[in-house]
């Protein structure tokens, strides 16, 4: 079977070209294209004639290039994988050493697994798309509240519905519409773990008047954690939330909150909304 396919590959390729000349970019990716070639040549997916398929695959890529179509990098990565498999297929299998596992994995095995796995999800996707979709086959009431509830004010005091993506996107959009210089100054990425450490230090200080410097590090075994805690401490000093005092040289370093304990709600209203 593979041999037969090999001899007529030129004409098969014509078929590929003709059949798909109108929708050359119709393949979702290299795996989709490979599955198509396997079907087209009617070969066994568990015994892919790799030379034939590789050649047709490369021909297809060449065609796309000649037509000046944008070739997604993913197609090229697969091309190199195919060539690699092909060359490994040409090498004689090394004699199994004494006591070594006799079974050598077929160079194609990994590709076959991926193809089959991909096919499953592609089919599952098609099955999903064929369901009775809300807004396509089935419909719900357009304005569920209000329509028939005149006079009732809707109170949205229920559970918060928030989405992490929306939160990040909100910040992203904000940065996008800001002048670049200002955005750059805002977009620091790695401050988050420091903020955790800041919160931790503030929480620990919450109940007492001061804290010993060493006490901050006692539980922390990891070096990274210690650095982050130290950076947090520096940040807290920088924004003048903490004071660090050392009474004598080499003496114990004490950390004090530089503000009196604040009453959350009261202070907020008073200072924010005078």
């Amino acid at each position, binding site marked *: 079977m593979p041999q037969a396919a090999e001899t007529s590959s030129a004409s098969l390729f014509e078929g590929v070209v003709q059949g798909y000349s109108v929708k050359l970019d119709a393949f979702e990716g290299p795996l989709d294209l490979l599955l198509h070639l396997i079907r087209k040549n009617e070969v066994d997916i568990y015994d892919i004639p790799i030379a034939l398929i590789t050649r047709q695959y490369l021909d297809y890529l*060449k065609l796309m290039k000649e037509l000046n179509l944008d070739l997604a990098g993913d197609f090229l990565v697969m*091309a190199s994988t195919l060539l690699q498999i092909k060359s490994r297929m*040409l090498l004689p299998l090394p004699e199994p050493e004494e006591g070594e596992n006799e079974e050598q994995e077929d160079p194609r095995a990994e590709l076959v697994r991926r193809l089959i796995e991909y096919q499953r999800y592609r089919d599952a996707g098609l099955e999903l798309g064929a369901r009775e979709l809300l807004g396509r086959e089935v419909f719900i009431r357009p304005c569920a509240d209000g*329509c*028939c509830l005149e006079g009732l004010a809707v109170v949205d*005091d229920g559970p918060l519905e928030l989405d992490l*993506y929306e939160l990040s996107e909100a910040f992203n959009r904000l940065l996008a519409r800001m002048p670049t210089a200002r955005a750059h100054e805002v977009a620091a*990425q790695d401050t988050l773990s420091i903020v955790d450490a800041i919160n931790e230090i503030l929480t620990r200080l919450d109940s007492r008047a001061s804290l010993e410097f060493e006490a901050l590090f006692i539980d922390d075994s990891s070096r990274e954690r210690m650095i982050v805690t130290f950076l947090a401490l520096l940040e807290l000093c920088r924004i003048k939330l903490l004071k660090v005092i050392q009474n004598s040289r080499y003496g114990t370093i004490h950390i004090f909150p530089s*503000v009196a304990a604040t009453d959350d709600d009261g202070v907020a209203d008073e200072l*924010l909304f005078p």
Partner: protein
Amino acid sequence: MSSSSLNAIIEGLLFVSDGPMTLDRLTELLPDYERASVRLAVQELRDDYELRNAGIHLVEVAGGWQLRTVPELMPYLSRMVKGRPARFSQSALETLAIVAYRQPVTRQEIEYLRGVDTGAVLKTLLEKHLVKILGKKDIPGRPIIYGTSKEFLEVFNLKDLKGLPTLREIQSLDETPVFEVQEELPLQALPPREE
């Protein structure tokens, strides 16, 4: 499809309509049916709901027909409109994002970034316990410093703030990956060897 009765079709149309539907409009949407049949079907449908003692009924309002809940259910429905999931306005989301990603942060800093007054939004976020006061900055004016709360982590199901998606990761969804192998590949050179 062919088996859908006219009554069922009209029921569906009234269900998805966002206001009362006139007989004219219904007839226009159902070109295969006579106006008289449509009128009859609407009346049958109304009687149906009446007979079933259903929770909804078909009423003629503002010259059209509309499905509504029966007035007797008001006490139950008013209970329901309370406690609906709170949706966030864009400005609340933006402010929360700034506090989350830039904390510890002052109101002035937030307003510098957003370019608008943020007092009311900040107050809402404090009331919803998503944002808390960390303390006061020791500079003239002693502005309040804000950060996110434990509840914030709970709402987003985060273990700690490190669980927040980095902006780079979100931004990278837009980027086309760069494939370095592109140049190296010998596309023309088909291996000469034949099996």
